[in-house]
């Protein structure tokens, strides 16, 4: 009985690991796609309307897809601490702590760059910085989508197979 219970636990643990990898792959693809789309909007708003940063964040928090909307909400709420913390820090910590935002360290580094230039230069220079980050985010997003499509099944199969293998050895 204890052996069977152990086998079930091993199997579900390994499957869970596989499932977690799949969720992470999907989450990253969703995050990068939503952020890249919102950056297109951000660039247009800054260039054409010279929208002030708080207003811009409000707009993006309202209109962006999940989880980018949650990220902009987090930055907007962090803006209340401006004067105690620089905007770049508010932006960077929001990248690290927004629930639902799934990013690899390289993605975070890229997006954190934007916090340093956002709201600091004239509209053209900012729009240029946003475009630069957007282009790279789009590239990462395409890669993340390809990885999701390619690796999801592999991760699921690997998880289950690892579980079955461990069970077989133990039994």
């Amino acid at each position, binding site marked *: 009985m204890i052996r069977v219970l152990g086998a079930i636990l091993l199997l579900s643990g390994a499957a869970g690991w596989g499932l977690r990898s799949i969720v992470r792959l999907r989450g990253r693809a969703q995050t990068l796609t939503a952020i890249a789309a919102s950056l297109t909007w951000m660039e247009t708003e800054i260039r054409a309307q010279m929208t002030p940063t708080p207003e811009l964040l409000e707009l993006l928090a309202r209109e962006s897809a999940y989880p980018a909307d949650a990220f902009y909400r987090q930055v907007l709420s962090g803006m209340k601490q401006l004067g105690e913390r620089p905007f770049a820090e508010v932006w960077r910590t929001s990248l690290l702590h927004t629930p639902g935002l799934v990013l690899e360290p390289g993605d975070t580094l890229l997006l954190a760059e934007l916090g340093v230039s956002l709201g600091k230069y004239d*509209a053209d220079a900012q729009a240029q910085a946003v475009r630069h980050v957007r282009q790279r985010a789009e590239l990462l997003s395409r890669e993340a989508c390809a990885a999701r499509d390619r690796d999801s099944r592999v991760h699921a199969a690997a998880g289950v197979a690892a579980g079955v293998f461990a069970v077989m050895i133990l039994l």
Partner: protein
Amino acid sequence: MDRTEERAARYDRAILSLPAELRACARRLEMSARADAEELRLRAGRVGTVLLPEGERPFTDRILTPRDLDGVLELATQASVHTAREAFRAGYITVRGGFRIGIGGTAVIRDGQPDGFRAVSSLALRISREVRGAGEEVIRELTGEGAFRSTLLLSPPGVGKTTLLRDLVRLLSDGDPKSGLSPQRVSLADERGEVAALQDGVPRMDVGRQTDVLENCPKDRAVLQLLRTMNPQIVALDEVTAPEDVQAIRYAANCGVQILATAHADGLSDLLARPLYRELLRLGVFRHAVLIQKNGRTRTYKVIRLEETI
């Protein structure tokens, strides 16, 4: 709240424009210094100072860095420097409450004109204060037969032109029974947002019940727009500095509107020594000039009848 507390409260509002650490240092000043403070000076590589009537005195022990100054501008613009571009070109920004921050540093020049700053090296936060009653001393001399006549307020920078302008606008707008002046429609071209200090459309300073304000718009264009849209009896504007301003004043005067304006000058002879102001006086628009002088903490006003002097 007595007058000292009121003045100190205005200082406390002004320092909300500073990042937390600097704000905490600035708040440590004693009440009398907070009440008397005219400006806060922040210079990279130096300690922060407060400008009092007797001179500058440090309010921080720490040497300020360019990052500190960037922090002030970030807070002042709510991380939106791009929206304050025109103001940056002019070398200052106006923050909530009508406080002006002057900027010094390495300017960026485009097409021969200043176009912002590459590096900021000093900031001057001016603590503007409303002094109700400042204009009562002179309003009677500026009105003849119950009607206000165009007036130019003169003083060197920082002596109180804007304060007197604001109170005269209030008196003209509300009317002054003591001088037999009925309420007038006043249009205020407040390019730097220092006179009325609009916040969400509502003036934070008392500029009177019948005053219409156009803020953030270059003065010359603001005067023409106000003439077209607000049907003013009096147009008020702060700091005549450009030939375009003089043209706008001439146009307004030709429309039968009285003008209340300010100019940087030590006195009438100083004013006449400068071609722009010579031209302004040559137009014969202004009937009076008020010379503002400061002796320690006391300000005195001297009304000059221009028709008799020039």
